[in-house]
């Protein structure tokens, strides 16, 4: 080839599969320059609008990759498969909601650095996208750190707000500790296999496990799992969530609760499923063969899931602050989302994705309404929702739909999400986990219905003046309501779509290293 000598081996890669990430990178860089060049007085919402356009372009690129064969460049450092496409679509949708929310409610007095706010959301998104779209421990970790560092700043962006500062500090400390723990676990894996490529690790780890290193493999798994549980705010790393959610500006809270959490699930599923796919445990006395991930570790993941569900749902009962309540609700939701991973059926990806979609739209809807209500009331307490039905009936009704979806009541997406997860747990005869899931869901009705009680049965002491809904929040709410109801009424269509267009088996296929077109 003619171009070979000039451009080297890197020139042979098909860089077009990286288009979604490159779009976000270009937009984040351009926006940071535009922000510097714009005069101080200019309304920074123009940067938000441009950022939103970037996110939508990237979403179009991502969706155009649906159903393609797995491809990889830079020796699997960047990898495109159905798993990556599905998660990236979720991140991009979540960030689009966060942008709409910020455009509608962000206050110049509250968040002074508005330009930074918008492009840091984009860099955080870029980190999340790399967490879903790589099969190399180093790139995955860099993605994780890019997401973490951007969110540390975003949490503390209300510079004059004492709670925001406190929460950012807590987030930095706990985030760094958990990153160190994750890295420690990864170092064991590297020490055992001599590579950071997940497929090579999978190839070698089976023999290593048989060769007397089983305890170190266990240790590495626990270290990495505990470290990564920070991102999904599951037990034992859940303590930061309430404080950080409360201190961060509402769009950032929404971002953390949806995009950051989904990214955590992406990296957990990607690393462990590929890494441990060939590790087989042989019972020395009976000679029985068991898969380490499916049969042995399921119990521990199940314990984490159960503890998250119990702690999240019981602690949420006592909260008077809406953001803290949503934080505990998020911990419980992380527990539900870990159940498919603990029970490990063939439908794992469909279940996780369906539930994530339900969770994404319900949570984003709630935070959008909450941003409006707390701006109107001047505080984040649950009592601020009193009399919302008289003040803004449409808002109250959409809020009810989102709350029902999170609680898992029929006709909403959340019901079927939970139902599928529950079924697989029962099918694998994991009755205790299914039982805890059922019982804690019933507990969760109390606090979700508590908000509804405020909206429909109380009157607001501050009067019944109407709440104005900015158009961008209106758009976000309409989309969220439509998707929540659609996925709740026609769940089989969504599942079929996921099943037909996303071939998750291809996550395990080793892709061609050099893609030439």
């Amino acid at each position: 080839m003619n171009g070979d000598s000039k451009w080297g081996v890197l020139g042979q890669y098909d860089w077009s599969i990286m288009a979604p990430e490159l779009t976000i990178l270009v937009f984040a860089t351009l926006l940071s320059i535009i922000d510097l060049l714009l005069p101080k007085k200019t309304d920074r919402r123009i940067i938000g609008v441009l950022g939103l356009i970037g996110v939508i372009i990237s979403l179009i690129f991502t969706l155009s990759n649906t159903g393609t064969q797995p491809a990889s460049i830079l020796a699997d450092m960047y990898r495109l498969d159905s798993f990556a496409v599905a998660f990236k679509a979720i991140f991009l949708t979540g960030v689009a909601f966060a942008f709409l929310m910020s455009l509608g409610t962000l206050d110049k007095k509250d968040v002074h650095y508005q330009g930074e706010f918008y492009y840091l959301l984009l860099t955080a998104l870029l980190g999340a996208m790399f967490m879903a779209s790589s099969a190399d421990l180093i790139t995955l970790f860099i993605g994780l750190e890019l997401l973490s560092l951007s969110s540390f700043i975003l949490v503390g962006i209300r510079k004059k707000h004492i709670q925001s500062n406190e929460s950012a500090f807590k987030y930095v400390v706990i985030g760094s500790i958990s990153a160190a723990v994750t890295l420690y676990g990864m170092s064991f894996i590297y020490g055992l296999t001599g590579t950071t490529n997940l497929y090579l690790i999978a190839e070698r780890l089976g023999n290593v496990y048989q060769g007397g290193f089983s305890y170190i493999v266990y240790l590495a798994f626990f270290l990495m799992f505990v470290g990564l549980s920070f991102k999904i705010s599951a037990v034992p790393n859940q303590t930061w969530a309430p404080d950080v959610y409360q201190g961060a500006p509402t769009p950032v809270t929404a971002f953390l609760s949806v995009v950051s959490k989904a990214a955590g699930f992406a990296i957990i599923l990607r690393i462990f499923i590929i890494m441990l796919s060939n590790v087989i445990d042989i019972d020395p006395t009976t000679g029985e063969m068991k898969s380490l991930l499916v049969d042995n570790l399921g119990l521990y993941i199940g314990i984490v899931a159960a503890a998250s569900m119990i702690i999240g749902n019981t602690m949420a009962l006592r909260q008077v602050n809406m953001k803290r309540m949503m934080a505990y609700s998020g911990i419980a939701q992380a527990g539900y989302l870990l159940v498919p991973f603990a029970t490990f059926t063939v439908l794992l990806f469909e279940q996780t994705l369906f539930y994530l979609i339900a969770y994404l739209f319900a949570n984003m809807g709630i935070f959008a309404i909450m941003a409006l209500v707390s701006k109107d009331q001047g505080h984040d307490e649950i009592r601020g929702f009193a009399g919302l039905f008289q003040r803004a009936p449409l808002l109250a009704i959409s809020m009810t739909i989102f709350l029902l979806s999170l609680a898992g009541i029929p006709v909403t997406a959340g019901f079927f999400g939970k139902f599928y997860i529950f079924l697989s747990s029962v099918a694998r005869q994991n009755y205790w986990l299914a039982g805890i899931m059922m019982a804690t869901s019933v507990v969760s009705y109390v606090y979700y219905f508590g908000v509804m009680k405020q909206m429909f049965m109380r009157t607001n002491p501050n009067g019944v003046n109407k709440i104005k809904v900015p158009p961008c929040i209106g758009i976000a709410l309409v989309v969220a309501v439509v998707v929540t109801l659609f996925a709740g009424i026609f769940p089989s269509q969504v599942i079929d779509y996921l099943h037909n267009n996303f071939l998750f088996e291809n996550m395990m296929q080793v892709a061609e290293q050099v893609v030439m077109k």
Partner: protein
Amino acid sequence: MAALYANNYLIVAIFLFLGILLPVGALTFGRLLRPHNPTTVKRETYESGLEPFGSSWVQFNVKYYIFAIMFVIFDVETIFLYPWAVAYDQLGLFALVEMLIFIALLVIGLIYAWKKKVLEWN
């Protein structure tokens, strides 16, 4: 192979043990051997032969940190540039473009710092 892996940790353990033993041993030995006869002049903080003055709890200007961070960024940039320059002939045009992107991103960082008045001292 498992034994080899564990042996490496044995060395770590020995070093850790020695690291704790040496200072503890040296200080205890010193305490046993030296005469104990303190005076006020002896108890004063040793500051390169100068008379100590003021409190050690002085506030440093926060700008030092920002300068330090700026320095580290460009220091690391040079570290990256060296191996690239050495292997320039093998790496080809693509690496040149990549390096230009890298430097461009750092320049954007510099412009950011400049516009945010980090480089001014007042």
